């Protein structure tokens, strides 16, 4: 009986909360969420790459939970993020086991491209310092979107490598440690996924060692190529194709609400 259902849903709305009640309820829910105050995100909207990707994960997680409880869905939702499915979704244990998944905004405002000794590098930084205590990274990935490029490089391949910055030196190359690399056709388009689990765990435990990531692109004959010319989307690209990283966490201890 639709009207009845409607009534139930609107029972909350029918009686406007007094401001005191609203504050009380907000305080209670923030306490359950483990947040000291309501966040005030300052930039980006929900149509950006990371929130859209996370919404797909949220939908997948919700479907998993409801299937586990015996709800059955006539169909599987189609993921709205374009490009290859999340590498970890093929092993959905990460998603099932995760107590928390976090995506991190790239803090480098404008593409910083280094050109030392005829090598192009692009820099990325993520702040993993504010991870709640007791959470351990079970998996982490860096995602960057590669656009289709029309001119030259036909039938060529690119080798795209991601490095952890170990040490920075003024005026010369930083010390880098290669984390992952991928060889793709120059004409390919879509999200590229790099595994950065070990590094993320290291950064969570030692935030002072977090000097960011660097990315480089080489042609098949070893020439360094400007990432922009290779079609890799940077900070001036569309919001829904911005690069970001995502990490899956497992709580190592039970979170108890503070006693009031």
């Amino acid at each position, binding site marked *: 009986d639709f009207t009845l259902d409607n009534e*139930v*849903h*609107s*029972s*909350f*709305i029918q009686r406007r*909360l007094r401001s005191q009640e*609203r504050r009380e*309820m*907000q305080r209670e*829910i923030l306490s*359950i*969420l483990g947040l000291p105050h*309501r*966040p*005030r*995100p*300052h*930039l*980006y909207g*929900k149509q950006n790459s*990371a*929130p859209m990707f*996370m*919404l797909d*994960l*949220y939908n997948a*997680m*919700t479907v998993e*939970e409801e299937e586990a*409880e015996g709800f059955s869905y006539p169909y599987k939702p189609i993921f709205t993020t374009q490009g290859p499915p999340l590498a970890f979704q093929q092993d959905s244990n990460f998603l099932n086991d*995760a*107590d*928390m*998944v*976090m*995506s*991190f*905004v790239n803090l480098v405002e404008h593409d910083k491209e280094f050109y030392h000794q005829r090598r192009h590098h692009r820099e990325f930084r993520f*702040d993993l310092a*504010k991870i709640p205590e007791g959470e351990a990274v079970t998996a982490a990935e860096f995602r960057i979107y590669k656009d289709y490029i029309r001119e030259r490089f036909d039938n060529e391949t690119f080798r795209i490598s991601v490095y952890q910055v170990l040490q920075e030196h003024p005026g010369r190359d930083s010390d880098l440690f290669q984390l992952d690399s991928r060889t793709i056709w120059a004409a390919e388009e879509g999200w590229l996924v790099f595994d950065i689990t070990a590094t993320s765990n290291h950064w969570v435990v030692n935030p002072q060692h977090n000097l960011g990531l660097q990315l480089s692109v080489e042609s098949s004959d070893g020439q360094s190529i400007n990432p922009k010319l290779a079609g890799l989307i940077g900070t001036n690209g569309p919001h829904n194709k911005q690069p970001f990283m995502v990490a899956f966490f497992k709580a190592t201890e039970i979170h108890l609400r503070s006693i009031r």
Partner: protein
Amino acid sequence: SAGGKQRNQNRSKAPKSQEALRVANIAENSSTDQKQACKKHELYVSFRDLGWQDWIIAPEGYAAYYCEGECAFPLNSYMNATNHAIVQTLVHFINPDTVPKPCCAPTQLNAISVLYFDDSSNVILKKYRNMVVRTCGCH
């Protein structure tokens, strides 16, 4: 048991009408109890109404189920109850002044996932276990 027998004899001497009243009372109670049996109720909490739709991406709100209703004698077959609750219901029936009724409380709880922005516009997807009532019963 001697006391009990004594009491029974007293009771058997109670006027019929009083006995009839007591039984009628139980019957009436049970029918009311039937209406008020322990079950799950729903109250929708809207994040939008709390003015939080700018930082909570999903869900828009959630059904805050709660358990309410009587766990009184007789516990009807469709009401699930722990064995202990059944025994306590009988003991309460015999000593209503000394033993309380069992209480109506959640028997199964679900997780709820919340997706939201933090202050730095990072996005957090967190699963909160044992948060939403799935079934109610007498404890």
